[in-house]
């Protein structure tokens, strides 16, 4: 569990309203993620008519987000491209750089998306945007979201509360899903690697029986984790799109 440990790097005495805002290793990896993302997108900003590889990659990502918003929200979704793109790429880069085996060169990688205190910020922010857009656009009509079309009059009140609760669960499910997926993957890799190490320490026989299969499994699961990094970032923004669609178009 050491890999999830937050440590103060500097600014131990920085504080807002009595709460410490020390710069931690988590904050460092957030900064790295931001920096890499800026470098990546800036590299694809040559604005050539015939794009090079890098520009093609960046345009592929923006086109992907643009298409997802167009498919889920329609032409109104265009204005969310900056937010959704930032969200997707920020989570994607965070997940990826947390998987890079920097431990080999003595660094200590940290996946801040495996902390719900970090993913919660993103999910609550998304939820607030949905609320703001919904109420700004539909005023109190937004509450009709909780009463689906064709609900019998008798069921309106119970359905309203069920829908309201499921709506209020959204930020939790959104943030927890990402945190759980990332943490589970890292824990699984750690458990398997500890099998390899302790199997090797316990002697050749145990290494052959437990260590080697674990190692092979680890290689496969590393590939799976790379996939999960992408999928979790995708799921996060896809659900964000679905929620924004509710706010934009109601039903």
């Amino acid at each position: 569990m050491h890999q999830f440990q937050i440590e103060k790097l500097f600014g131990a005495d920085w504080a807002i309203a009595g709460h410490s805002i020390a710069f931690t290793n988590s904050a460092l990896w957030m900064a790295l993620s931001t920096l890499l993302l800026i470098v990546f997108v800036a590299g694809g900003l040559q604005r050539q008519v015939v794009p090079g590889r890098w520009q093609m990659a960046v345009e592929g990502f923006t086109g992907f987000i643009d298409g997802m918003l167009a498919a889920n929200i329609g032409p109104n979704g265009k204005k969310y491209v900056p937010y959704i793109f930032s969200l997707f790429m920020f989570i994607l880069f965070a997940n990826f750089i947390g998987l890079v085996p920097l431990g080999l060169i003595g660094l200590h990688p940290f996946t801040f998306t495996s902390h719900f205190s970090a993913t919660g910020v993103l999910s609550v922010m998304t939820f607030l945007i949905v609320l703001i857009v919904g109420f700004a656009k539909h005023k109190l009509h937004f509450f009709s979201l909780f009463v689906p079309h064709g609900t019998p009059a008798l069921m309106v009140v119970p359905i309203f509360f069920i829908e309201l609760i499921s709506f209020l669960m959204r930020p939790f499910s959104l943030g927890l899903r990402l945190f759980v997926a990332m943490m589970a993957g890292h824990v699984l890799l750690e458990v398997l690697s500890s099998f390899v190490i302790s199997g090797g320490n316990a002697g050749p026989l145990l290494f052959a029986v437990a260590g080697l299969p674990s190692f092979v499994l680890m290689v496969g699961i590393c590939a799976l984790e790379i996939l999960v990094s992408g999928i979790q970032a995708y799921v996060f923004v896809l659900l964000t799109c679905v929620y924004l669609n509710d706010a934009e178009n109601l039903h």
Partner: protein
Amino acid sequence: MPQISQLPEFYVSQIFWMLVFFGLTFLVVGRGMVPRVLSTIADRTTRIAEDLAAAEHARTAAEAEAEAWAETEAAQRARAHDLIASAKHTAALATQANLATATARIDAQVSAAQARITAARDASLGEIEWVAADVAQDIAQRVAGLTISADDARAAVKGAFTHG
């Protein structure tokens, strides 16, 4: 589980830095760069659409031109055909006229020559009659000692000539 055990100590720091760095990402990348990337894509799309439209336009124009050219060509071909036909006709007519005059001239020459031949033959026949009558008178004198008048001799000769 550090996520929970360290929560009281670090949640404000986590939230603060998350907001700072995600905000930075959103401002620099989302607001600053993404619209430019999207506008590049939009520019390219419109440019491709324009190029395609221009190519389509040029194709239509070329097709119209080719059609017009084909029409002109057909018309010119027809005119050339007409010209050749009329020229042929004129030539045939002229040939016919020339032929007719030449035939007439030849005919006239032939008939004149025939007339001349006839006259010459008649003339020579007449002379032969005279000579024959003389010869007959002479022969009758020498053989039979008869003196035949020139008119009788001539009548006899003429009769022989007439009956062949």
